[in-house]
């Protein structure tokens, strides 16, 4: 199934793309989408413990299920303000 992956700030720089469309095996979780992404871009590994995840523009958890057409965003530590 297809999901849209959104990446921000340094995660975007590390992969060279802010938005990717990827086929992932079903059933999927945010964690399995991330694992597929890390295989493609090993440099992302350093964010394993510090990044947050959002599914369809709502903060979520790595074990959350992901469905066809969902937007999964991986967020490095924030620095607004």
């Amino acid at each position, binding site marked *: 199934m297809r999901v849209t992956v959104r990446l921000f700030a340094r995660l975007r720089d590390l992969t060279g793309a802010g938005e990717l469309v990827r086929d992932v095996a079903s059933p999927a979780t945010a964690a399995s989408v991330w694992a597929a992404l890390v295989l493609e871009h090993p440099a992302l590994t350093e964010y394993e413990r510090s990044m947050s995840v959002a599914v369809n523009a709502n903060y979520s958890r790595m074990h959350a299920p992901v469905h066809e057409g969902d937007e999964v965003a991986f967020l490095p*530590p924030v620095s607004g303000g």
Partner: protein
Amino acid sequence: MSSPLVAITGQPLDAAALVAGVASAGAGSDGAVTAFVGLVRNRNLDRRVYFLEYEAYELLALRVLQQIIAETAQAWPGTRLGVHHRTGRLEIGEASVVIVTASPHRADAFAACRYAIERVKQIAPIWKREHFEGGEVWLEGAAVHPDDEEARQRAHRTACA
């Protein structure tokens, strides 16, 4: 025209407009309005800063700002607020964030304002890239889930300190 209460915008922030927008809904019950304006500073970590570049996950950021407003109104009943955050390239001295609170009492207005900026820094999906003398770097601060009650209480304690 009145300002929306939350905004993520590439346009320069207008603090006076947000003050007017929040204050106008008071209908006479307010005793205080406070405004916090965050500015781009020319030094950070002992180095000279040329400019900052802000990026946001806009839809989630707007939802998070709404959540911060709801949390603040719950913690300080009778308090209303607005939060605007800028994105894109910001020069030294420009405003990156404006938070306005209105309340019957000044203590609540100040505390709510401080709480809101602490929460923005904890959970708003916004990032800044610092362009400094000698390079550029994405600054990375908090990694807090919005439902993390311990972090929320930390912001509350800071607001009431």
